[in-house]
């Protein structure tokens, strides 16, 4: 069993996820960005989609399906970027000036 299919890998992914959430929270506070629950949910969905995109490309490459990796990367990657920009703007809504 390789590291990436072990339980320890998913444990580490969990640690990274917690740290990322904490970082986002501090970052939002510092910038005066309010983070109601719906923003967390939207951010969560976007992160899952981004994770799906990355894992899809990786899996397709592992399967030797280069066309699937390329087209999936473009299609899902572009969707991630466009929705990411939208989300970024949405996150900043309601922002208060920070002293």
């Amino acid at each position, binding site marked *: 069993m*390789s590291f*990436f*299919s072990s339980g320890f*890998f998913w444990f*580490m*992914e969990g*640690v*990274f*996820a*917690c*740290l*990322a*959430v*904490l*970082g*986002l929270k*501090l*970052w939002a*506070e*510092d910038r005066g960005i309010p983070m109601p629950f719906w923003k967390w949910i939207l951010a969560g969905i976007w992160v899952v989609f*981004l*994770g799906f995109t*990355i*894992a*899809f*490309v*990786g*899996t*397709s*490459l*592992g*399967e*030797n*399906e280069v*066309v*699937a990796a390329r*087209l*999936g990367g473009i299609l899902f990657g572009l969707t991630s970027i466009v929705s990411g920009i939208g989300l970024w703007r949405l996150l900043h809504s309601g922002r208060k000036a920070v002293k």
Partner: protein
Amino acid sequence: MTQNKGKGFTRRTFLKASGAASALLGSAGLGFYGYEAGKDPRTYRGWENWEGVNQDFNRKKYAVDKPTYLKVGETSRPDARSDVIFYRRGLFRRQWRDETGLEGLDPYLQKYYRQNPEHLELDLYSQNELMPKLMADTRKYRKQFLLAAAWSNAMGAVGPPRITEPPEKSDFMLNRRTGQPIEAVQFKDPVKTSKLIKKMAHELGSTLVGIARLNPDWVYSYTSIGRGFKSDEPIEVPKHWQFAIVVGTPMSWDPLYANPTYGTSNDAYSRSRIIGFRLASFIKQLGYGARPHTPGTDYDLMVPPILVDAGIGEQGRPSIVITPELGNNFRPAVITTNLPLVPDKPIDFGVQDFCKHCKICAENCPSGAITFGDPVEERGYLRFKVDTAKCLNFWNSTLGSMGCRLCVAVCPYTRKANWIHKAALKVTADDPTGLTEKGLTFLQKKFYPGPDPQTYYMPSLGGENASYRPPPWWLRSEDFIE
């Protein structure tokens, strides 16, 4: 919260930086995880484990009371001598003389060819034009498929003996002294017996197993291969053929995707044949009748509808059965028996609707054997019709081991068991709107294209010996042989 502004790198800054770094590392980790998942040999279902863990689809959730094929008229049993292409071609080769033509054939063949004149043309074309070309091209391009052919032959080199006695004799274990069947042990409960038989099937190497009550419509009316039956006498369905146990295994995955024809059917055929004979032996030793019907051609019945009855899967557009776990990469054997069992229920996980729109196999079939149309009536049942004469002619238009298997390789259901394909199966099976099915078919066509179907033909027929995907490293003769 403490904000140590002006003190350089604070704890807060450190946590924010860690968050950003974690997001990056976590994302990269998912990419590596995906890569490993795509390569993982444990996703090659059916070749890694004999404990039955691969039969993991929740069939109960999709169980239905009636099979997904429709009975629409008066039914009749197939005559294997003419309706089954392998047997018909064998008889045709032995009987056809140019001087006597149709009149020189047995009456049932004459009748068949009068009703299906296009098949007479295809059978003649195979005999007169195709086979000589195949032999010439095989000599010329032998090296390309040398390892694949040797592997295929090795896989088929071991097998149980052929059945030659009638069912009342060969299906039972006979007492050496009296010549009578040995006494049957009494089982406590058919539910428990069924559980035992399924465990035993897995233990003997079967990837999937199911039980059906045998519908006599699936038993041939006539056969030409013996197995204790005479070719000129109708088969009377033996009384002890009450249940049909289905077992089977998949073909090796990487070669499968490299058809035509770095793949072979012999690998799964051989395994399923041995499992069929072993399970029949197990049942016979307990005093019950059991007859294995095994691949390639040792059958007294049609197998696909029995798989549907046993809840193993649903019949797809190319007429073969699609299972949730293996797609149509499944080579079955059937054991007919009178051991008291409880039949499984058929399942409906959406294949009929999927096949109506998908048509990927029809688009990729080089011979045009698979219909683009709707199911039609055949012997009283509605099903997608496949032109087996065109199909077999294509088998003889490719080099390497016998067969084609492209309709297996290209089917969206026939995918390795990694997270992408498992998720796709789950979503399509559970979506009543059919929208995901259409979306996934569209993506499948774009993401997993194959070469132009005409390039699969051997060079003397204008092709390029193409394969759907490149052969695995261990079948590339040019890398090993001078």
